[in-house]
C-alpha cells in the first residue's frame, strides 16, 4: 500500500487545515495532530518502501500522463518530505505556546500552517508543471500571511514586497509552462524529456529561461534576493524557521528537478548551470558580507540564508556522485541548522526584548540553552566538524577538487570564512559582559522557557548528528542521483 502513503502526506494536512477552520478547540487540536504528527509515521513506511522498491509514480484518478497528473517519489523527494515533517513539526511544537488552540491567534495561525505543510508536501511529490504552479501559489499564499502575523509595520511591508515578487515570479514561471505545453504536448516533468530531446525550437529555450528567472526570484537567489532578509527576519520565530529552512528550498528543488531530470543532457539550455554556479558564488560572498554587517540577530541569520542558498547552486555544474551527496547534505543540514538558529533567536528575542546585537550580552547566563542551540547551529553553518554542514562542505570541496575547479575551491573557502566571521560575531556579542550585575537565568527558571529552548536545541543536535549518522542517509540518497551524476 505504499501509494496511499503519498495521498496521506498531502491530504492529512489538507483535511487537518479544514478541521482547524472550525471553531472548537478539539477540532483545532485534532487537525494539528492529524496533519502534523502523522507525517513522520507515514514517512518511516514510505522510506522503507523507497528502499525496497526504488522510485515510483502514482497516477491520480487513474488517468495516466500525459492526460492526468502523476505523483512521483524518489530519494530526493523523500529527503524534502522528511525535512517538512521534522523541521515543520518541531517549529510547530515551538509555535504551540504562542498560538494556542482556542485563542484568536491560534485560530488564525493553524489553518495556514497546515495548508503550508500540505502545499510543500504536494509540491515535492508533484510530477506536473502546471500542478506545480498551483502548489507554488498555495505555498506563497499560505506563507505570507504567516509573516504578517507578526503584526509589525516592518513585517507587513516585508510581506507585501514578498507577495508582489512571488506573484511576478509565478507568472513568469507559468508563461514558461504555457510555451512548454504547446511545444511538447504534455505537462509531465518526466514524459517531457523525450519530446524535448527531439525538438530544438527557440520556444523551449525561452520557456526554460523564463522558468529559471521565475524560480531564481522565488528562491531569493542573488541578485533577486532583495525581498528575503526582511521577510524572514520580521516573521514570528517558527515561521522564520520554516521559511528559511523549507519554503525557499521549494524553488531550488524545482531547479534541480527541471535541470537534472527534465532537461535532456545535450540541450543547449544545460549551459545555464554555469550561470547558476556564478550566481551561487556571488550569493555566497555577497550574503556572507551582508550578514557580517547586520546589526540585528535575525537579519544576520536571514542574510546567512542568502549565502547558504549559494552552495545549492554551486553544485550544479559538478555532476558527480560526490556533488550530489554534497547538495543533498547541504539541503538537509542547512535546513536543520537554520531552523534551530531562528527558533533560538526567537527565544532570545523573547527573553531580552530585542535582537539588536548591541543588546545581547551575558546570554550565557540569561538564555544559556538557546545560546547553545544558536552556537551549535552556527557550527553546522560554518562547516566545522563533526556537523552535517561540515560533511556537506567537505563533499563539495571534494567534488570541486575532482573536477579541477580551482576558482570554486577558493569561493568555498571564502564562504566558510565569512560564515565563521558572522557566527563568531554573534557569539562575541552574546558573551559580552558590559553590565557587572548578575542577571537571572530566564530559561532555566521557567519551564516554558526551557521547553522552547529545547526545540531549538533538538534541531541543532539533529544538524550535528547528521554528520555522525551520514552513512545510511547517503546510501539512500545515492540511489536517487540524477542520470549522468551517478557514474563513479
Amino acid at each position: 500500500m505504499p501509494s496511499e502513503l503519498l495521498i496521506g502526506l498531502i491530504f492529512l494536512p489538507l483535511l487537518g487545515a479544514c478541521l482547524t477552520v472550525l471553531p472548537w478547540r478539539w477540532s483545532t487540536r485534532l487537525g494539528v495532530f492529524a496533519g502534523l504528527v502523522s507525517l513522520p509515521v507515514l514517512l518511516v513506511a514510505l522510506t522503507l518502501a523507497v528502499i525496497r522498491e526504488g522510485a515510483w509514480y502514482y497516477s491520480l484518478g487513474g488517468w495516466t500522463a500525459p492526460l492526468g497528473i502523476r505523483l512521483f517519489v524518489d530519494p530526493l523527494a523523500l529527503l524534502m518530505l522528511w525535512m517538512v515533517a521534522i523541521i515543520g513539526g518541531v517549529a510547530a511544537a515551538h509555535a504551540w505556546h504562542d498560538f494556542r488552540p482556542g485563542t484568536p491567534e491560534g485560530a488564525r495561525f493553524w489553518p495556514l500552517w497546515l495548508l503550508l505543510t500540505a502545499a510543500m508536501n504536494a509540491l515535492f511529490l508533484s510530477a506536473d508543471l502546471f500542478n506545480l504552479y498551483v502548489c507554488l501559489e498555495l505555498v506563497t499564499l499560505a506563507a505570507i500571511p504567516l509573516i504578517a502575523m507578526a503584526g509589525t509595520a516592518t513585517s507587513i511591508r516585508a510581506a507585501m514586497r514578498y507577495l508582489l515578487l512571488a506573484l511576478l515570479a509565478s507568472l513568469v514561471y507559468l508563461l514558461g509552462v504555457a510555451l512548454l505545453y504547446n511545444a511538447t504536448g504534455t505537462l509531465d516533468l518526466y514524459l517531457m524529456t523525450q519530446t524535448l530531446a527531439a525538438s530544438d525550437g527557440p520556444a523551449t529555450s525561452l520557456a526554460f529561461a523564463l522558468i529559471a528567472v521565475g524560480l531564481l526570484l522565488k528562491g531569493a537567489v542573488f541578485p533577486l534576493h532583495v525581498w528575503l532578509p526582511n521577510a524572514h527576519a520580521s516573521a514570528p520565530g517558527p515561521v522564520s524557521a520554516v521559511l528559511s529552512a523549507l519554503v525557499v528550498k521549494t524553488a531550488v528543488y524545482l531547479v534541480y528537478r527541471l535541470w537534472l531530470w527534465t532537461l535532456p543532457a545535450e540541450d543547449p539550455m544545460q549551459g545555464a548551470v554555469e550561470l547558476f554556479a556564478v550566481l551561487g558564488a556571488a550569493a555566497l560572498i555577497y550574503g556572507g558580507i551582508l550578514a557580517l554587517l547586520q546589526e540585528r540577530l535575525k537579519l544576520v541569520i536571514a542574510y546567512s540564508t542568502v549565502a547558504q542558498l549559494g552552495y545549492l547552486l554551486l553544485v550544479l555544474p559538478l555532476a558527480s556522485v560526490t556533488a550530489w551527496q554534497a547538495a543533498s547534505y547541504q539541503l538537509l543540514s542547512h535546513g536543520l541548522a537554520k531552523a534551530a538558529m531562528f527558533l533560538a533567536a526567537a527565544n532570545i528575542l523573547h527573553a531580552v526584548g530585542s535582537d539588536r546585537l548591541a543588546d545581547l550580552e551575558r546570554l550565557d547566563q540569561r538564555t544559556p540553552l538557546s545560546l547553545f542551540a544558536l552556537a551549535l547551529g552556527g557550527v553546522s553553518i560554518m562547516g566545522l566538524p563533526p556537523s552535517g554542514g561540515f560533511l556537506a562542505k567537505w563533499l563539495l570541496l571534494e567534488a570541486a577538487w575532482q573536477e579541477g575547479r580551482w576558482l570554486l575551491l577558493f569561493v568555498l573557502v571564502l564562504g566558510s570564512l565569512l560564515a565563521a566571521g558572522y557566527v563568531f560575531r554573534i557569539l562575541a556579542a552574546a558573551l559580552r559582559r558590559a553590565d557587572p550585575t548578575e542577571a537571572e537565568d530566564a530559561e532555566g527558571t521557567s519551564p516554558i522557557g526551557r521547553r522552547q529552548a529545547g526545540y531549538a536545541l533538538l534541531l541543532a543536535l539533529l544538524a550535528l548528528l547528521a554528520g555522525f549518522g551520514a552513512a545510511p542517509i547517503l546510501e539512500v540518497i545515492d540511489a536517487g542521483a540524477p542520470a549522468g551524476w551517478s557514474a563513479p
Partner: protein
Amino acid sequence: MSATATIYLLTAAAVFGIGVYGLLQARQILRQLLAINLMGGAIFLLLITLGGGAEGPPDPVPQAMVLTGIVIAVSATAFALALLVKLQDATGSSDLDPPDAE
C-alpha cells in the same frame, strides 16, 4: 498559422510586456497589482490561442488551466488587497517606498 491566431498571439505578447513595464515602473501597489493581473491575462490569451482557439474549440487542457488560473488570480489579488489596506493602516502609506529602515 492563421491570421486570427497571429493577431491574438501578438496581442498576448504585447499585453505581457505592458504588464511587466507597468509592474516595474508603477509606484502605487494598486497599480502594480493591476499590472500583475494584466500579465496573467496575457498568459491566458497565449495559452488559448496556442491551443487552437482561432480555428475551432481550443484544447480543453489549457482551458481548464486558464479557469484555474483565473480563480488563483482573484484569490491572490484579494489577499494582496487586504494586505494593502493593512499596510495603509499600519504605516500610513500605501507605498513601499521609501524603503524600510533596514
